[in-house]
């Protein structure tokens, strides 16, 4: 069972440059922390795949086990786990997130990055 879930996560984070595992959807987040990360990505104009863990309890637990990270949201960039809400917020504020996007050649709105 775990292998099937892990395979799904692997294929999601390989097939999409930016993946956000979240509660709710990008259009309708159902948790303040998921909403905060969505807002940052939207502000930056980053295209991302949103996966609503509330729709699938196996994925909800699976992403926690996969990343050894007990909370949602979880942000992946080019297959790499970047962190949850606190880390994404810090990295956005310091400009590190924008630098990672540049380094990994992921399109975003540079004017919103300042």
């Amino acid at each position, binding site marked *: 069972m775990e292998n099937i879930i892990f395979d799904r996560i692997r294929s999601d984070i390989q097939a999409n440059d930016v993946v956000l595992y979240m509660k709710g959807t990008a259009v309708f987040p*159902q*948790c*303040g*922390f998921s909403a905060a990360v969505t807002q940052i990505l939207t502000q930056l104009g980053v295209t991302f795949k949103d996966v609503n863990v509330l729709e699938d309890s196996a994925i909800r637990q699976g992403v926690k086990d996969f990343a*050894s*990270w*007990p*909370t949602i949201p979880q942000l992946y960039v080019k297959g790499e*786990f*970047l*962190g*949850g*809400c*606190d*880390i994404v917020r*810090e*990295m956005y504020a310091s400009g590190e997130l924008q630098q990672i996007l540049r380094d990994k050649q992921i399109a975003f709105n540079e004017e919103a990055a300042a």
Partner: protein
Amino acid sequence: MEETIRRKLAESLNPSVLEVVNESHLHAGHAGDDGSGETHFRVKVVSAAFSSMTRVEMQRLVYEILKMEMGIGIHALSINALAE
């Protein structure tokens, strides 16, 4: 819960700065509020134990120390972890 968080982090990390703020009242009636008034916390911790760790590693360590509490009552834990 607040005291347990403070004690466990103090014992494990010997921090130079440790702030634990109970923010549960801000989330009353929201998801995860179990009525205990001890479900949402914000933690700032500065410790030499974090030196040479990435942000993800620092936060994983804090989660690990509070693993039991995460399972039994804490709904949300906001972590600001810094190396000394």
